[in-house]
């Protein structure tokens, strides 16, 4: 290993084995000390090891124990925390899976909207017209606010009795006493709608960058062939966006299944615990009641579920690619 780095430190380029595609032209390699790259990496590596790698492993260790933060004894229990999650007779089973269902419901309801509505917005903004940058910024604006602001703001706007939403609906002659934060399915509609409102700009901006990367010549060719706008969209825009689309879908699934603040602040899990998401429940168990072993096990189960969903999504896109 050391030999290799010494040789790359030499003057002659071709000895370099790891430089990108193609042989590096001679003279391009910098003469650096063996330790120099590691010194540059060191500060970040220290943080990365302490707060990313170590906890990823440590968390699993914790999940193998009956780990109560407040007690000095933390007995090793093997996989018991995981077994409890699968045993319908255990104390946590019902609540945990209810929270997983809540996360699933929210993800299923929000992802289709969060994938399609921003795409429409991006196509709208892809035309050239005066003020385009301004409108793009306006639609993006809510995204720069934190979930705490969004949460307390919409808790107020959606208040069934005092909120502006019901007042506005009443003013135009629609029902004005919808229980947006306390009834079903209204609570879900609220949470999904608020999330779309909040994050639409994020995906839209990503789509917009993707659309602008599609070569114009393709559209010109299509115009000569006489395809309509819909044909253009189906045969040029969508295929051109495929890599971006895969990213957006997977990223949105992950983001939606991380939902926490909206439920905590807008519905507070109501009605009952119907809108209490998995993250809310895990945080409650682990960091309020300090049952950290059990909560850590739950977080790995959720991670595993997300991994599966991501892989399946990825494959679906790949298969369609092949077709």
């Amino acid at each position: 290993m050391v030999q290799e780095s010494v040789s790359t430190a030499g003057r002659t380029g071709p000895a370099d084995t790891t430089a990108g595609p193609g042989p590096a032209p001679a003279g391009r390699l910098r003469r650096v000390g063996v330790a120099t790259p590691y010194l540059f990496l060191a500060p970040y590596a220290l943080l990365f090891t302490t707060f990313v790698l170590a906890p990823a492993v440590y968390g699993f260790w914790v999940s193998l124990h009956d780990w109560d933060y407040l007690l000095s004894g933390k007995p090793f229990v093997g996989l018991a925390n995981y077994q409890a999650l699968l045993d319908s007779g255990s104390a946590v089973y019902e609540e945990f899976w209810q929270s997983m269902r809540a996360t699933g419901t929210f993800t299923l309801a929000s992802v289709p909207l969060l994938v399609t509505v921003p795409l429409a917005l991006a196509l709208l903004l892809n035309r050239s017209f005066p003020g385009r940058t301004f409108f793009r910024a306006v639609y993006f604006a809510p995204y720069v606010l934190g979930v705490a602001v969004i949460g307390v703001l919409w808790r107020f706007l959606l208040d069934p009795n005092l909120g502006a939403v019901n007042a506005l609906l009443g003013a135009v002659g629609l029902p004005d006493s919808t229980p947006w934060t306390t009834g079903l399915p209204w609570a879900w509609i609220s949470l999904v709608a608020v999330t779309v409102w909040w994050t639409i700009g994020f995906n839209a901006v990503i789509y917009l960058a993707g659309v602008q990367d599609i070569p114009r010549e393709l559209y010109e060719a299509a115009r000569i062939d006489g395809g309509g706008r819909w044909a253009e969209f189906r045969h040029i825009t969508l295929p051109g966006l495929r890599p971006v689309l895969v990213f957006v879908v997977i990223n949105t699934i992950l983001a939606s299944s991380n939902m926490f603040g909206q439920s905590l602040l807008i519905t507070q899990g109501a009605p009952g615990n119907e809108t209490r998401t998995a993250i809310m429940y895990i945080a409650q168990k682990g960091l309020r009641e300090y049952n950290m072993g059990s909560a850590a096990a739950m977080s790995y189960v959720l991670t595993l579920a997300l991994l599966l969903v991501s892989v399946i999504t990825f494959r679906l896109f790949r298969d369609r690619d092949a077709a």
Partner: protein
Amino acid sequence: MRKVRGIAWYTILIGMSLVFIAPLVWMMITSFKSTGEATRVPPTLLPHEPTTRAYHDLFSGSSQTPVLRWFLNSLIAATAQATLILVVASMAAYALARLEFPGKRLVFGLIIATLFVPVFTLIIPNFLIVDRLGWLDTLWALIVPGAAGAFGVFFLRQFFLGLPRELEEAAQLEGANTWQIFIKVILPLSKPALATLAVISFLGNWNDFIWPVYVLFSPDTFTLPPGLSILQGAYDIDYPVIMGGAALASVPVLILFLITQRYIIEGVSRSGLKG
């Protein structure tokens, strides 16, 4: 005909803008109402008797809700973390983009893999690690662990890879060492990318909610996001105060966004093209 279409077009655009902006305007307006007026049904559009009472309440800050302190804490934590990220991420990104060393692919692969690890898996063990370090209930917990995220390294590495090598080679011929090249050539060339990363990091920290909710306990160490959740509980339906608090947490980032929107939007759109 063309003109009519133009009018229809802008009507749609402006109508949509209202959907995005009106809730924020409502937040500001409400913060200048009296409690009675803010909860009146049907609501008044503009405050009949505008008052800054909510802000007096917020700033006089009882010991349970020292809002100015939260504001200051948010500012300190976000600034410190953005600075820390710029320093450690730019150094690491430079090594990964320009220097050759054994294990480089492994290191880069490891960093990229963690971009896909859900944040919550790390929350419980990180709570314990931060506890060991004696950082629970301090701003350190908000500043340091979050700087380990992979985004900054990834983002800057991409940018460095796109820089022309000629200037570095010229500096090298003049006898500059790696560190000098990094400081005097690479960093000055990377100002736009560094600015983008600084703003995005600042926003991320300023808005962070779940982590501060669980690692901070005393009102004096809170930042604005967990503080808002406390305000919501403490002031119940005193909406002018709650909306005033939300406005305090929003206005600085909205101003930052107005000034740097090009950077933010470009940074975000590039983050999406990593796939």
